[in-house]
């Protein structure tokens, strides 16, 4: 006879070696309900902050762009803004517009990537196929401008490395028009789908009070009714000169976060189009001499939220301290507020809703100590997809065979 009852723990992780955020979630479950969550991370800590102290100021952007492949424009941007503030450097106007264009293209491809993955997690592979298909031309545009699909390496202290050539602007505008139509169609399809409403509304709710306590940022905050956006609150690059809106939703559930991201994608297309049309002539960088002693901060709105960099200099050619905070660092701990009390089948999408680069879940395993069944990532994914199917059936949607998923 057992006289102690062990709580079943669902292990998500530890990590996927291809992802930049290695996470290990341990969910305590009672039947179908999640009763606690514990997060362990840093399985692949690369010591970026320490390495940064060994590099010269102009080498660091290439290091920090490797923090994350998807956010490889926002990290170096936040860093160079800190150094420019420290040294009182003002980059030329054209560079500010080029930075805006690249950062918004990054947001578009990142949000579409998320929409696709989210679709897959709930068994909506059509959304996955569409979103990723529409994302592909955005990467091509980035490649045309910077030479790379990711890790653009385009921003430097004092300006940019590569210009947006005037000759390709008509082509970029044409591609944007095509992308806008497709994104609008995808957005409408998602917003009008009764099954997605039933599946995602009220799931993984992060209340506004919790969002403030956990200091979440980006679409995670805006989906909980907190209208913050560094692009508007502390304008950088060319955002203050362009016309765009901060998208918010008040519900805080997974659906709200999806709506925020989809509508933001359309705003981003608007921003890129305006920036291309208003692109001023002139040089794209200024000469930078010495970085004086001092300290400064730089922050930028990455697709997942605020990216924050703090740089301190002693007057030498290397930073003596460089602190980096990626948005997921504050978004991920909010799982404690959004997952507890949820159904197991909803956890996959709730954890994915803050967009923490979620293919980490390839190594998901569940140990249910009541009956010693070990589930894998596949069975959990199936649980989530089956729930969508049940809802579909209840609503009277077309029946899908599991083999089709």
């Amino acid at each position, binding site marked *: 006879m057992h006289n102690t009852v062990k709580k079943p723990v669902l292990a998500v992780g530890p990590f996927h070696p291809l992802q930049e955020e290695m996470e290990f979630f341990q969910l305590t479950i009672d039947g179908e309900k999640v009763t606690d969550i514990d997060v362990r991370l840093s399985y692949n800590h690369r010591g970026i902050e320490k390495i940064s102290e060994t590099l010269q100021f102009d080498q660091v952007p290439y290091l920090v762009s490797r923090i994350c492949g998807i956010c490889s424009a926002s990290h170096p941007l936040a860093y160079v803004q800190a150094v420019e503030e420290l040294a009182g450097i003002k980059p030329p106007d054209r560079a500010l517009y080029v930075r805006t264009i690249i950062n918004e293209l990054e947001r578009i491809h990142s949000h579409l990537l998320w929409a696709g993955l989210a679709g897959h997690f709930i068994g909506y592979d059509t959304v996955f196929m569409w979103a990723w298909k529409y994302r592909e031309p955005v990467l091509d545009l980035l490649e045309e401008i910077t030479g790379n699909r990711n890790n653009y390496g385009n921003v430097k202290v004092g300006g940019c490395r590569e210009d947006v050539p005037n000759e390709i602007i008509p082509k970029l505008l044409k591609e944007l028009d095509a992308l806008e139509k497709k994104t609008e169609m995808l957005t409408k399809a998602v917003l009008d789908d009764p099954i997605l409403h039933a599946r995602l509304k009220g799931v993984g709710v992060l209340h506004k009070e919790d969002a403030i306590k956990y*200091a979440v940022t980006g679409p995670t905050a805006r989906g909980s009714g907190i209208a913050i956006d560094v692009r508007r609150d502390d304008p950088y690059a060319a955002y203050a000169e362009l016309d765009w809106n901060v998208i918010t939703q008040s519900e805080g559930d997974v659906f709200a976060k999806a709506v925020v991201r989809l509508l933001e994608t359309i705003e981003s297309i608007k921003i890129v189009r305006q920036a291309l049309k208003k692109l001023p002539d002139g040089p794209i960088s200024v000469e930078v001499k010495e970085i004086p002693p001092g300290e400064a901060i730089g922050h930028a709105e990455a697709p997942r939220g605020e990216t924050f960099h703090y740089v301190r200099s002693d007057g030498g050619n290397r930073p003596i*301290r460089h602190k980096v905070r990626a948005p997921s660092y504050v978004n991920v701990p909010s799982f404690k507020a959004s997952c507890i009390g949820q159904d197991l089948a909803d956890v996959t999408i709730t954890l994915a809703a803050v967009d923490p680069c979620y293919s980490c879940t390839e190594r998901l395993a569940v140990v249910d100590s009541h009956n010693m069944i070990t589930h894998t990532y596949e069975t959990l994914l199936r649980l989530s997809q089956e729930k969508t199917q049940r809802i579909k059936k209840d609503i009277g949607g077309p029946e899908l065979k599991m083999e089709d998923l």
Partner: protein
Amino acid sequence: MNQQELDKKLSEVKNKLTGIERKSDKRIYLLCEVQNSYAINKFLFEGVGCRFVIATGIDSDNCFEVLYHYSYDETGCVITIKAFIRDRKQPAIESLTPFLPAAEWIEREIHDVLGIDFKNHPNLRRLILADDWPAGVYPLRKDLPKAN
């Protein structure tokens, strides 16, 4: 609150500060000693309604510094509390986690990399160092021996 009202509000904790550095309208640094850090942080988060961004731990020449960065999003002002820990042998500072869950991870991280103790932290386990990392070796301290 606009920027002027924010400045006025910040002056409420003036007696707890050792200095204010104002690098621009949107970058304010509040300097304090370790014993006042908790009260000033609580004031910024609960009294002013700032958003906690992150904390930075620094091994300075003769002290440790813990910088708490806050953003007042209404005006886009970034306010940094710079707390000096003079005791280099047993550096310790009051934890903010009991009223600010967002600080839990970064306090654990600073504890890992600089060996600063966060008093009353509910869960000061390792966050970023591996389980088999030797105790008492702090990777961001300046006196860390260089690897060969």
